[in-house]
């Protein structure tokens, strides 16, 4: 129920201010990491790899690296902000205000979406300047970033609520998200993999995100992008429904 849109917007602004206040922690590191990946894997080692999906290996890397950082940023933003709010009790400001569960969740998710688009935009700019590649299908580019950011922001909120200490937040990134992202096609095309591994990729949700997103650059993908977008939308809807329910019942928020 959206009865307090300005309350929602205030939370979005608050999340954006938080991102800018900790810019050295959340904005520059993904940019510098991407630069290193492009120089080391793309330009140095990549010169020994033939063209992939019709582009150089360095160009092939860019969309995968954007997805890697969008996933990491969305999850990190929401999980740490919500957990910190619980830890410092500042979340009580939202809980006593006339804001619904939908407005609170949407505020965090939209704040995270803004950060994701900022990071994606900066890396896209790096791709244009360094390896001369830009997206060719902008609607697909924007749709995938938005849907992936919503999915991982919702997961971040779920773990920000479930966690009892900061360490718990890292469990999902360390043991699930990072490994699945690295084997999900950031550095490789599905066509480079042996057939058995290729089938296994279909059980990796992050594969769908990178495969669909890369199509916005190269025009080629292993799967039909509509199918991939459908999978991401389904997962995002499940994650959103879960966090909305948790917030509405006040799980670990209201005693």
């Amino acid at each position: 129920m959206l009865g307090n849109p300005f309350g929602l917007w205030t939370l979005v602004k608050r999340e954006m201010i938080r991102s800018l206040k900790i810019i050295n922690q959340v904005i520059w590191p993904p940019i510098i990491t991407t630069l290193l990946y492009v120089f080391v894997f793309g330009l140095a080692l990549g010169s020994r790899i033939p063209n992939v999906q019709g582009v150089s290996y360095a160009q092939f890397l860019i969309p995968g690296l954007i997805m890697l950082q969008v996933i990491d940023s969305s999850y990190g933003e929401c999980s740490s902000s919500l957990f910190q709010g619980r830890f410092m009790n500042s979340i009580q400001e939202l809980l006593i205000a006339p804001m619904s569960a939908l407005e609170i969740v949407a505020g965090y998710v939209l704040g995270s979406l803004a950060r994701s688009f900022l990071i994606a935009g900066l890396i896209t700019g790096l791709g244009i300047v360094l390896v001369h590649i830009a997206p060719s299908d902008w609607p697909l580019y924007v749709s995938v970033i938005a849907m992936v950011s919503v999915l991982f922001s919702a997961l971040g909120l779920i773990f920000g609520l479930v966690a009892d200490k900061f360490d718990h937040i890292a469990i999902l990134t360390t043991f699930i998200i990072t490994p699945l992202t690295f084997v999900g096609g950031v550095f490789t095309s599905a066509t480079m993999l042996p057939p058995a591994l290729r089938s296994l990729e279909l059980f990796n949700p992050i594969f769908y995100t990178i495969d669909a997103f890369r199509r916005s650059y190269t025009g080629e993908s292993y799967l039909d992008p509509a199918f991939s977008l459908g999978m991401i939308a389904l997962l995002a809807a499940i994650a959103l429904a879960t966090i909305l329910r948790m917030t509405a019942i006040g799980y670990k928020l209201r005693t």
Partner: protein
Amino acid sequence: MKRYGSFTAVDGISLRVRVGEFFGFLGPNGAGKTTSINAIVGLARTSGGAIRIFGHDNRTQWRQARRLIGLSPQEYNFDRYLSLRDVLIFAAGYYGLHGKAIAERADMLLERFGLSAHAHLEYTKISGGQKRRLSLARALIHQPSLLILDEPTAGVDVELRLELWEWLRKLNADGLTVFLTTHYLEEAEQLCRRIAIVRDGRIVTEKPTEELVADGASLQDVFLELTRS
């Protein structure tokens, strides 16, 4: 009523605070004061019963009810990324309020509570007494009709305590209903028109202050007699 598993923290507390009243809600540690406040403001879900804020049920008409309440909690819970001025402006924003009038009200409250010189600092850079005043200013930014104060003078020096009393008297005189919990019994005696004393989650007495301290007994004597195990 509020239960945590088999433990009953608040057991059938029934009270009515009148509009414009300065009401004291006293009790020893663990008596159920903060749990009751949390239930009123929506931070705790009640296990039974109903709470109405100026006629609005705080479960079914929660938006209307919450708009009417300002809370100054026992522990500081400010947003660490905001300046003092933004703490007030963002707090108003969560209530759906914005614009020039809110910016002016924030400046007025900062001025009134002696915080103007620190308006652009983060709350971690100000003293405990200044944080207390900021907490009060934040509770007032959306012009609530009911101000709930959970131990507002805990940990502040005598001078500031007297200053805070003066501000609270003025706010109440201007028509604001005040609901106060405190461990300082002289504070309750000085400020409150009516007092309820709770013990083990139940109200043991609820009377006008002058009736409680009739017959020459101090509020402390009455409190100890009613709450001692």
